[in-house]
């Protein structure tokens, strides 16, 4: 979707203002937004692409005015409501009204460290994906697509030409995974775009951008 999250190349967002003494979390509610999101993610009621789409679906003005963990909190609420795990009335009352739904997996404290260390790769080489369409060195054009649903091809590369830098392997395709959990594994590449190609005469000298793009985002140039 062409949401406020797709920030690359935008102007006027102010200074970066790194804070060398920044705490990992600024307030306890951030700890809660973080840990509740991870714990609920473990229950398997949605995948990471659905989770990203839920955050992106925030109204653009609000997205830009709120912080990272507010995006997470919003995403978690959307997903919980969509799956009928929590209702708005329950949030208002701060207590359960309806019965709990049975969930197949609950993250237990004793399993947290091992679960994090195990992770869950999106690599799917074993799924017999079709042959890679491109090789390193091939010239490609990122497709000009504008789906209202989740996608990971940023606006600033759509319609632009680049060169395949490297072939990463076969990975879950986010667009279909976000819609229906259909992983549709396909080849993923790092594509190099020259600054001039992306930004024209306003490009800074000697700078380029590498973007990870899947077969379904690319055509031969």
């Amino acid at each position: 979707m062409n949401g406020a999250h797709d920030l690359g190349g935008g102007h006027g967002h102010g200074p970066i203002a790194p804070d060398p003494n920044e705490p990992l979390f600024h307030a306890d509610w951030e700890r809660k937004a973080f840990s509740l999101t991870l714990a609920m993610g473990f229950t398997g009621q949605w995948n990471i692409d659905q989770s990203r789409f839920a955050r992106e679906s925030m109204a653009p003005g609000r997205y830009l005015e709120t912080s990272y963990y507010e995006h997470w909190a919003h995403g978690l609420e959307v997903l919980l409501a969509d799956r009928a795990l929590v209702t708005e009335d329950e949030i208002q009352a701060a207590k359960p009204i309806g019965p709990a739904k049975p969930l197949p997996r609950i993250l237990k404290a004793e399993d947290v460290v091992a679960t994090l260390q195990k992770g869950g790769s999106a690599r799917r080489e074993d799924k017999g994906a079709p042959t890679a369409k491109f090789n390193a060195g091939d010239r490609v054009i990122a497709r000009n697509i504008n789906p209202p649903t989740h996608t990971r091809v940023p606006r600033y590369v759509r319609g632009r030409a680049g060169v395949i830098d490297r072939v990463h392997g076969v990975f879950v395709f986010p667009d279909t995974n976000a819609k229906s959990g259909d992983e549709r594994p396909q080849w993923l590449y790092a594509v190099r775009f020259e600054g001039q190609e992306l930004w024209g005469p306003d490009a800074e000298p000697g700078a380029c951008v590498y973007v990870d793009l899947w077969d379904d985002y690319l055509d031969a140039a």
Partner: protein
Amino acid sequence: MPHDGHHPDHGSELSETELRIRALESLLVEKGYVDPAALDVLVETYEKNVGPRNGARVVAKAWDEPDYKAWLLKDASAAIASLGYTGRQGEDMIVLENTADVHNMIVCTLCSCYPWPVLGLPPTWYKAAPYRAHAVSQPRSVLGEFGVTLPEDIEIRVWDSTAETRYMVLPLRPAGTDGWSQEQLAEIVTRDSMIGTSIVGTPS
């Protein structure tokens, strides 16, 4: 406060969000969807155990051992896993080597993808709009905001983490560190140098 008011990314005053999150927490616990003790372990893991010191050890080893560096650049996931750093948001790692001619920088313009097992959770500026918007189009200007000025004949490569591959920069080893132990080397490797918004300076 070090912030200047332009950034929404700090939030102890956000009472409505705080109230809703508190309500969610009690609801999810009461419904049995989450184990409250698991929440504490999740937070503790990243507050205490998983952070940029992990990445610094990877960098120090690569600086010190040519064979390890070659492995790291060829198969970062395996080379990093050999030090025990694995898992969530770092399952498929790629390490980018800075050289005399090339400077690498990582960003995630679409959200805030970041290599958790080696760098921990990202700083606020990495997740906020200014860096995500400007890094891809004005990387030299962005580096300037971090106090780094690179000559124009050094190519800047910005890596936008749009997939589940996670990037980390292998910074240039500074002069004046010959004969240093890996522990000494790891001490001078900063988080930002592994993001690519900083360089590791020559020790004074």
